[in-house]
């Protein structure tokens, strides 16, 4: 345990939560988007009968199966981690966070898991309409899941509708206000759009990779075109949603916004926008700042001369760690604008009829493939670090939330998670890449690819006929 010498149990518990959470969130971010994409592909197949759609469906279904499985197992870890490492938090917030998560399990997890088997293996057994219904249920389940867990997280950021009982627990005074707390609608929209963008960029990168080798393949052409439409349309929406989310943060969690902007000092007559710099938490200033005068006030207050308070108005023991929040925010925003650029470029290329030929376009899309994951992680680091030093903003300090743990116990489990996740996720990433490395082909099989697939089911018409023959 020498590597964690000098770390206390609180820091170790936070490191463990950050580590397991970061590994978890990339899978839901991908599977929320991919489940919806699969539903769209299957709908298009049923509607048009074109073979390319069922090939794409089966191709991405195999990838979905792996990503979903990894999301499930890392998610179970999360549901127990509240108790193992954050037992004081669980006792105090259990009456509010617990029911929200119970609703997530009841409305979302069961729905996804219950219909997943049919979605993965059941096309031949239940017929096309019921199978499409199963796909839809899985897709809807992923969205329900986002609804509840983001409500729970948002309540920790902007708690409303609660009272405190004699045991010191938060209890619900008004469930409507608990669920629809002030930051929830913004966070929900921002995250679901992020999931769709993340998936679109992965799909686009895989399409681009195969188009670079052969620009005539029908599968890669269709997926690339769909993904680029998604980037074109959703990236600007996401920037708009992010801006609104930021204004909401200014209103309800000003300290977080000050940290994101690097505003240690108050600016009574117009705050600058600090583009880059090195936040110096000790001296409470941003070193080597590159800034645009008055732009900060213009963006946040829509008036270049509006006064803007800084962290100097907040007691120092309530400051979030500015350097992490400041930089993770910039990474997220930077990637967001790159996505916008990709979407616009694809529109131009489409206009000129070069979408499937332009090598630059494809290299750009390929490079942007993993960017959604990085942006999602950076965004979560911004909002979670910006909430510090509280777990329930302004009400429950992180240091009062932790389990009565001895540091060596947490350090051991952190090392165990590190080793296991490294092995499992590395293998998973390799298998996913391997699937993505070959293009979707004629007669693409479902998730049990080593078993010879029947010829039936390639088009709805022949599938229905074959299904009729079987039954």
């Amino acid at each position: 345990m020498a590597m964690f010498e000098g770390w206390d149990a609180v820091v170790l518990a936070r490191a463990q939560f950050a580590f397991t959470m970061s590994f978890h969130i990339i899978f839901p971010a991908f599977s929320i988007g991919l489940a919806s994409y699969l539903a769209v592909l299957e709908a298009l197949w049923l509607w048009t009968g074109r073979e390319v759609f069922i090939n794409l469906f089966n191709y991405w279904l195999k990838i979905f199966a792996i990503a979903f499985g990894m999301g499930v197992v890392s998610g179970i870890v999360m549901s127990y981690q509240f108790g193992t490492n954050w037992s004081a938090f669980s006792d105090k917030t259990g009456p509010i966070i617990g029911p929200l998560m119970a609703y997530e399990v009841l409305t979302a997890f069961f729905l996804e898991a219950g219909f997943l088997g049919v979605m993965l293996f059941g096309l031949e057994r239940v017929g096309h309409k019921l199978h499409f219904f199963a796909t839809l249920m899985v897709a809807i389940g992923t969205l329900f899941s986002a609804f509840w867990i983001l409500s729970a997280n948002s309540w920790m950021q902007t708690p409303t509708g609660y009272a405190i009982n004699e045991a010191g627990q938060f209890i619900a005074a008004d469930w409507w206000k608990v669920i629809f707390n002030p930051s929830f609608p913004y966070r929900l929209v921002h995250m679901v759009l992020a999931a769709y963008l993340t998936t679109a960029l992965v799909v686009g990168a895989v399409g681009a990779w195969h188009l670079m080798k052969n620009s005539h393949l029908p599968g890669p052409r269709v997926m690339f075109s769909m993904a680029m439409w998604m980037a074109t349309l959703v990236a600007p929406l996401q920037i708009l949603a992010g801006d609104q989310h930021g204004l909401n943060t200014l209103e309800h969690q000003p300290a977080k916004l000050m940290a994101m902007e690097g505003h240690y000092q108050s600016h009574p007559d117009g705050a600058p926008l600090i583009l880059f710099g090195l936040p110096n938490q000790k001296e409470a200033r941003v070193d080597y700042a590159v800034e645009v005068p008055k732009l900060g006030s213009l963006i946040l207050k829509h008036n270049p001369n509006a006064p803007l308070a800084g962290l100097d108005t907040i007691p120092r023991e309530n400051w979030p760690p500015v350097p992490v929040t400041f930089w993770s925010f910039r990474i997220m925003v930077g990637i967001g604008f790159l996505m916008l650029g990709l979407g616009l470029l694809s529109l131009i290329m489409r206009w000129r009829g070069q979408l499937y030929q332009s090598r630059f376009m494809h290299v750009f899309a390929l490079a942007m493939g993993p960017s959604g994951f990085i942006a999602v992680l950076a965004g979560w680091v911004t909002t979670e670090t910006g909430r510090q030093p509280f777990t329930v903003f302004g009400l429950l300090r992180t240091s009062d939330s932790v389990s009565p743990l001895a540091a060596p116990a947490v350090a051991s489990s952190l090392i165990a998670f590190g080793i296991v996740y490294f092995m499992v996720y590395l293998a998973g990433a390799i298998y996913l890449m391997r699937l993505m490395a070959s293009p979707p082909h004629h007669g693409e099989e479902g998730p049990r690819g080593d078993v010879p697939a029947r010829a039936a089911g390639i088009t709805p018409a022949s599938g229905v006929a074959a299904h009729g023959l079987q039954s």
Partner: protein
Amino acid sequence: MIDIAIVWAFIIAFAVFVYVVMDGFDLGLGMLFPLFPKKEDRDVMMNTVAPVWDGNETWLVLGGGGLMAAFPLAYAVLMPALYTPIIIMLLGLVFRGVAFEFRWRTTRERNLWDIAFAGGSLLATLSQGIALGAILQGVTVSGRHYGGGWWDWLTPFSVLTGLALVAGYGLLGATWLILKTEGELRERAYGLSWWLLFAMLGAIGAVSLATPFLDAEYARRWFAWPNVLFSAPVPIAVAAVTILLLRALAAKQDFRPFFLSLALFALSYAGLGISMWPYIVPRSITIWQAAAPDSSLVFMSYGFAVLVPVILGYTAWAYYVFRGKVQAGAGYH
């Protein structure tokens, strides 16, 4: 007036039991993997649970999440008390869960993922059984926190309950294979079921004998008059189910052994309930002390009443879709 804390105690107990019923055979089948070295057999074994394991495991999330929601104090005390077994269980579940998909994506490392599947199932089962024993033997509580040490969970008794669960899940896995497979695989599952049944009965006996020595209250609960009127039917029913199960195995009735094994689990579970009632952390915290305020329990009750029947409905449908014996090489295509 309904006591909503009692209702939720039964709901959490129900969720945990459904988890044991549904994931028990998945994990049991995983532990039996090393005894079936042929790739074709393993393919079939995995395919019997591949479409449903995910839903089965969701009940574990409901058990954990539900405990936090309905009895936050118990969750906050028990999780740190069971820190090591819970972490090991989670890591075991990670290995066996990813193996479901990974082993189909590789030929070179297939053996590796088979080991992960079997080892993960064993670790998860063992730690669940140990956790159960650790709860039964009682945990140290100080104020609203766990007050014991980091190795309190490890005692001869908790190791015994751990091994008991390995035997029990093994029996569920073997009888599930009888139900879902045919040919040589089914024959071998019959052979294993005999051994596993005797192991499980031995384990039930050993745990039942050891429990009264943990605490005088357990002994009073089981043997004092008039409690014995309520407790005596349990061992009698265990004997009856055992006889039926032995006959079903001897007569090779494919359908019955699995459900009779589940009946054994239900009876053992009822026995646990008799021992623990009305505590949720034995002899420290009752269900009323741990219960969340009514505003939380009532809010969840609506959802539970509406959603759980729907969940059971579509879960049953999924099992129905994948009903019948699984053939070698057929997968689920």
